């Protein structure tokens, strides 16, 4: 059973039948977290680095931003019994257009925002597939914790 995670959206579940999937990660980031002991997992698909960009959006749409979305993803997993020290984190996205002057580097900024938050909170990234020109689809299988990405024209890759 596939559960789709939209843009500026997250899904957390412990349903062993579920595969979480989020499509069209361009400059956006997909964050997949999983606690293998209680078999709880979630994916967040955020669009932009910081909610301070727009005061209203951060309360209306906290999942649109890294700094408001990532804490919500972890908190939701804790509700299902996940424990931070056991959680495995894998990320994908942050693609870039060809940009010589860093005027359009939203993908890079999205990635930097996540690194900053994880560093501050002692969260390690187990594996990642970042950057490049290709949009990605990110999958998380709840029964096994398996995470993989699909890239148009290139096929699938295990993370």
């Amino acid at each position, binding site marked *: 059973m596939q559960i789709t995670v939209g*843009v*500026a959206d997250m899904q957390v579940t412990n349903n062993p039948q579920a595969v979480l999937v989020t*499509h*069209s*990660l*361009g*400059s*956006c980031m997909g964050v997949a977290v999983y606690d293998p002991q209680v078999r709880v997992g979630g994916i967040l698909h955020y*669009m*932009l*680095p910081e909610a301070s*960009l*727009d005061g209203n*959006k951060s309360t209306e*749409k906290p999942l*649109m931003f890294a700094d408001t979305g990532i804490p919500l993803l972890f908190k939701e997993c804790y509700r299902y019994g996940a424990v931070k020290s056991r959680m495995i984190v894998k990320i994908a*996205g942050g*693609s*870039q*257009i*060809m*940009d*010589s*002057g*860093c*005027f*359009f*580097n*939203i*993908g890079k*900024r999205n990635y930097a925002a996540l690194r900053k938050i994880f560093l501050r909170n002692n969260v390690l990234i187990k594996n990642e597939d970042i950057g*490049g*020109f*290709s*949009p*990605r689809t990110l999958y998380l299988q709840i029964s096994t914790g398996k995470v993989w990405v699909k890239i*148009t*024209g290139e096929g699938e890759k295990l993370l």
Partner: protein
Amino acid sequence: MMKIDIAHILPDIKSLPPFPEVTQKVIATLDDPEVGIQELVEIVQYDPNLTANILKMSNSAYFGFPREVHSLNQALLYLGTQNLFKIIIASGATRLYGRCCNGYILDQGELWRHSVSTAVMASVISRWLGVPDGALLFTAALLHDIGKLVLDYYVHDAFTEIMALVKEGNYAFQEAERAVIGIDHAAVGGEIARQWNFPDKIRLAIAYHHLESPEALKNDLALLVYLADLLVIILGANLGVDGLAYRGHPWVMKHFGLRVRHLEQLLALFWPEMQKAQEFFNLDFRV
């Protein structure tokens, strides 16, 4: 691969499903300030599918009218000429965009979704900049990738060579199309616009939407379509194998007085607008 020129693809353009006559008529009048709502009504009223689409869109979240619209006359009153133009043209374009593009690895409907996204983004940008958010920009944005419908076959055949240039040669996708096939999808789109008698402003915005000509830098419509397309591409939805392999030109930012932070604000504004625009994907395909 043997390189081709515009003349070579003319038969391919002729074999495209044509725009409905109503739509062609309406597009031809887009740049004519004299055209009033009465003339549009006369074109529309005998077309039941178009009427149905107008009512559907009038009641959609995108236009957001305060009460339900039941009749064509009521709809026209609320919508006004520019919005009416947009609905008629979008209705006509759905049929054209109905198919897959195997060369670009776009599933059925994905090019249409990208096109509508670009049109919605163009509206968001123009409102943000305080420039007119009219049907001319909407149409140019909606039809900017029309050349892909024709070039698709050639991209399919030249796939390996194009991808090698993009991946190893630092070519933008349309630069690789030109290097391998001899022509790119923007130029093909411009030719389609010529064959179909689109107003020059729209034809040029389509032909220049990757800013390959120095003329493009003086063309505000082309620059807006370029920026809208680029921001939609950056987000990553409904892209084919060309993905994000397009160039960001810093002087576009300078031209419109934009910074990275502004682009992020535009993306944040775009997303809820796009949710409201879903009714564009339920337009009637029949004509």
